[in-house]
């Protein structure tokens, strides 16, 4: 029936509508509670920003956000046995989902600690006082040392975290797309909120935004093709459709490839990585930490779900591609990291290399690979948050000492800090007794069992290359004399210390006694994805 026809037959249609009542599907809100809590906190944060005076805001906002994340984490723990599809098939609550949700919430909590840090120097935090002030204008210099803070950062973080939670639990491509945007848009904004080096920060935001939008266009185009193929965007139904013989495979493959591009963008896999170093460098470092840990977990969670659930039957088709991308990602990440002079960029390239290692787990395409990836994500997240948190501590008079040369001799000036950083770097390099090693081991073991031995060999070789640049930083810190204008370490940034300490301790624990978490990841993975 055409639009005109319906317009003419308006009253009739209404009558029909009255007779065919809409059955609103039951949404099991209890199972949604973690997501709802975080959304609620975000909304409350917006209200607080609107109505509470600036001074009180600076205290209330971090508390609110932290409390929200803790509450949501508790909700996740309470839900731990839930396995169901809810909200008319839109969301799936299952082992991997809950595992990753828990991880995301913990990372968000640590990131809030870092963002809330106000003792780093006179400036009071890494977030800009007012983003609207144009860099270079008269107010710009004043705001650097202003006590003001753009407290909207907290609700934005909460929104982003909610998007991440949705992302890993989405059971349809549409929800996945919306979640992708909910997690990304706040991050684009947050990237532009660095207090110092505003210009760099704004450019990073713009670049992140443009490339992010670009990638989500690919995602949505892929979604369209998959819809065309399967007639549905429900992950389970896509799998069913992919299982039938004689269907029109072209659309499926096109859709799979385009969706893959969209998600590979988010995890920073080569050749879709180019935003990573710039954004990591330009964003306020606590936000970088949040992004590096949270986005990676969320995007990988979605990637795993998509490829295991929807395209699980096609693994022989996508595995070669994943192989190639994994190899490229590892090699490019490790090699380009060698050339970096900026510590944040170096960590960004290291993040790229780690995405490659994680893809090895995906390429394994078995249950071990899934549990290994889950473990790896948690291990990597804690380490990377601690590492970026530590980067915020090493400062010169003009903000963070991001250039590697300024880190020279840090071991002499503050051995504990340098020691922790060295430990974190060793964890990133994958030395035994650190979580990085256990994670790599779990993933590689699965990959070898899944007949991806060559991939593992490449991964090991790139690990060796990667070890070189981690070791180089250790050399700088410990074996060289501090420069004349060496970095200043701030004395008592309690919150940052807490975040870094937690990250480092977890890194150690997961290296020494990883069994509980491995068990958790194992049960999460074996119970599998619900459809």
């Amino acid at each position, binding site marked *: 029936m055409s639009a005109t026809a319906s317009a003419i037959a308006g009253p009739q249609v209404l009558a029909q509508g009255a007779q065919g009542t809409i059955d609103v599907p039951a949404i099991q809100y209890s199972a949604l509670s973690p997501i709802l809590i975080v959304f609620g906190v975000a909304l409350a944060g917006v209200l607080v920003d609107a109505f509470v005076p600036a001074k009180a805001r600076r205290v209330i906002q971090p508390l609110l956000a932290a409390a929200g994340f803790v509450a949501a984490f508790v909700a996740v723990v309470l839900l731990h046995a839930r396995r169901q599809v809810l909200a008319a098939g839109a969301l799936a609550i299952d082992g991997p989902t809950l595992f990753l949700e828990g991880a995301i919430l913990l990372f968000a909590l640590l990131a809030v600690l870092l963002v809330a840090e106000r003792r780093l120097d006179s400036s009071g935090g890494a977030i800009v006082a007012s983003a609207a002030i144009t860099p270079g204008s008269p107010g710009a210099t004043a705001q650097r040392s202003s006590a003001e803070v753009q407290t909207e950062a907290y609700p934005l973080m909460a929104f982003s975290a909610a998007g991440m939670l949705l992302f890993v639990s989405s059971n349809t491509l549409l929800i996945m797309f919306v979640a992708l945007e909910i997690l990304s848009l706040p991050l684009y904004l947050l990237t532009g909120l660095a207090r110092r080096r505003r210009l760099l920060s704004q450019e990073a935001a713009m670049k992140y935004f443009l490339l992010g939008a670009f990638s989500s266009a690919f995602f949505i185009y892929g979604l369209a093709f998959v819809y065309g193929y399967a007639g549905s965007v429900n992950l389970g139904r896509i799998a069913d459709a992919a299982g039938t013989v004689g269907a029109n495979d072209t659309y499926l493959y096109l859709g799979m490839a385009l969706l893959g591009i969209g998600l590979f963008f988010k995890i920073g896999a080569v050749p879709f990585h180019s935003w990573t170093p710039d954004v990591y460098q330009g964003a306020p470092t606590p936000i970088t930490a949040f992004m590096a840990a949270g986005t990676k977990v969320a995007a990988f969670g979605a990637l795993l779900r998509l490829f295991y659930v929807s395209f699980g039957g096609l693994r022989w088709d996508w595995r070669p591609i994943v192989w190639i991308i994994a190899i490229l990602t590892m090699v490019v990440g490790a090699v380009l990291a060698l050339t970096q002079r900026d510590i944040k960029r170096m960590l960004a390239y290291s993040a790229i290399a780690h995405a490659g290692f994680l893809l090895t787990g995906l390429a394994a395409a078995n249950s071990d690979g899934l549990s290994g990836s889950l473990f790896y994500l948690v291990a990597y997240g804690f380490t990377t948050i601690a590492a970026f948190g530590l980067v915020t501590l090493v400062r010169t008079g003009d903000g963070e000492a991001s250039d590697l040369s300024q880190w020279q001799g840090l*071991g*002499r000036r503050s*051995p504990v800090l340098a020691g922790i950083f060295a430990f974190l770097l*060793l964890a990133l*390099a994958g*030395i*035994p*007794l650190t979580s990085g*090693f*256990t994670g790599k*081991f*779990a993933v*590689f*073991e699965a990959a*070898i*069992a899944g007949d991806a*031995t060559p991939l*593992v*060999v490449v991964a*090991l*070789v790139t*690990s*060796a290359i990667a*070890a*070189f640049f981690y*070791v*180089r930083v250790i*050399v700088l810190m*410990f*074996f*060289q*004399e501090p420069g004349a204008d060496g970095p200043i370490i701030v004395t008592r940034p309690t919150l940052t210390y807490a975040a870094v300490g937690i990250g480092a301790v977890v890194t150690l624990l997961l290296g020494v*006694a*990883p*069994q509980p978490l*491995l*068990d958790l990841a*194992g049960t999460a993975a074996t119970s599998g994805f619900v459809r």
Partner: protein
Amino acid sequence: MNSFPWLTLLLIIPAAAAVVVAVVPRRLGTLAKQITLAVTLVEFVLALLATIAYEPARAGFQFAQKYSWIKQFGISYSVGADGISLVLILLATLLVPIVVLASWDEVDAASPDGTPVVGRRSVPAFFALLLALEAGMVGVFAATDVFLFYVFFEAMLIPMYFLIGSYGPVKEQAQRSYAAVKFLLYSLLGGLLMLAAVIGLYVVSADQLGTGTFDFATLRQLDITPGVQKLLFLGFFVAFAIKAPLFPFHTWLPDAGAQSPTGGAILLVGVLDKVGTFGLIRYCIPLFPEASSYFAPMVLALAVIGIFYGALLAIGQRDMKRLVAYTSLAHFGFIAMGTFALTSQAGTGAVLYMVNHGLSTGLLFLVVGFLVARRGSRDVGAYRGMAQVTPTLAGVFLIAGLSSLALPGLNSFVSEFLVLAGTFTRYRALAIVATVGIVLAAIYILYLYQRTMTGPLVSEDARGVLDLSVREKIVVAPVVALIIALGIYPKPLIDIVRPTVTATFEDAGHTDPAPTAPVNASQTGGHS
């Protein structure tokens, strides 16, 4: 006594002490030294007691303990000692207190021209690193879980890395960090290849047994196809060859040896590198018997090349520490040759060689370290005629050198003879060629001695150089004593080592060839 947790104790004590020493404030350096010395002495006594409690006749691992660690991957904390590992643990625990004493003043001393000798002078940190290293060494020898072995294998690198990088010669900052990085990267690369093989082994075990395991005893029982064996063997072998180091993988050793503090160098060459040769005999041969036979000719070729290459480079060396490092390359050639001759006699010789080399090279490094501490130079040319002013030092130097060139009556002779004799029964030509290496050893050692100790004194200001102090004498005395004692009466060691080696080779299916020449036990002072 066998239920007593000897090995765990041996592991925990230095590890705990390392933590304690690490938190000692910097200004209480002496306290740190005292704690370290006491702990390492206790450790040595414990190791000695364990050796007494060890029953050589019993097969299998003794003092075994096993606790599940990471269930998911079948990883357990399991330790145990057989003859091979026990003597190496003994060697390690013996050398550490000696190193502690030898480094007593090195860390915070100043060189003759007033500049600090070492780069960073946190005394407690230095000794904490030593203790951590000791824990790592004990762990790597005691582990009977392949994964645990790997963990210690890698974990050991870190303290050594910092010892080289932070405590090497202060004036050579660039070379020092270069050496440290080179050492770490070489080892990491090897370690990663081994990791691949370790994971491969796990997957094979999972295929065959249903659940994967890293338990050494279980893995030995696996029936691995030759193709897979070769791949896995290579993974392990390259790691061990880098560690040992064998000929083409050795280039890190001279740098690391030269840039380490004396104590670090002793432990590096004396014990740490033994992990490589230990791994060859403990893991490569029993786990991959067919592959070891297959690759034996290649390894032997590398070993012989190493013997000559190391010796020739040592002859041409002017830097004394590098020189000693190169001599070690030659010695490691002998050890590898003894291992891969695949006869129980050569194998026993190789294990003995590990111990003896630890003693003789340790002593050489000690003496060189004393010299360097006195004159601040590693150059051979700075030391002509030192015997005139430092007769005791020269005497010790001579003993160390003679031990190194395997003079009959000193410890190395026994092992070198066993290696050559054992190799001879299977590869005659090779054994004969290798014998020439002994001649070269005599050249580089005696040439070194001649250039440093004999002749007119290098300069007048060298006249003020002091002979060995009491502390230094205490340091060298036990080593010298052992060098002589083990040369005369090596039986206790052989008794411990031989059954294990024999069992290892027999399990792997390498029976000794029928004796064609009467070169067996009779000359070696007799064994069971």
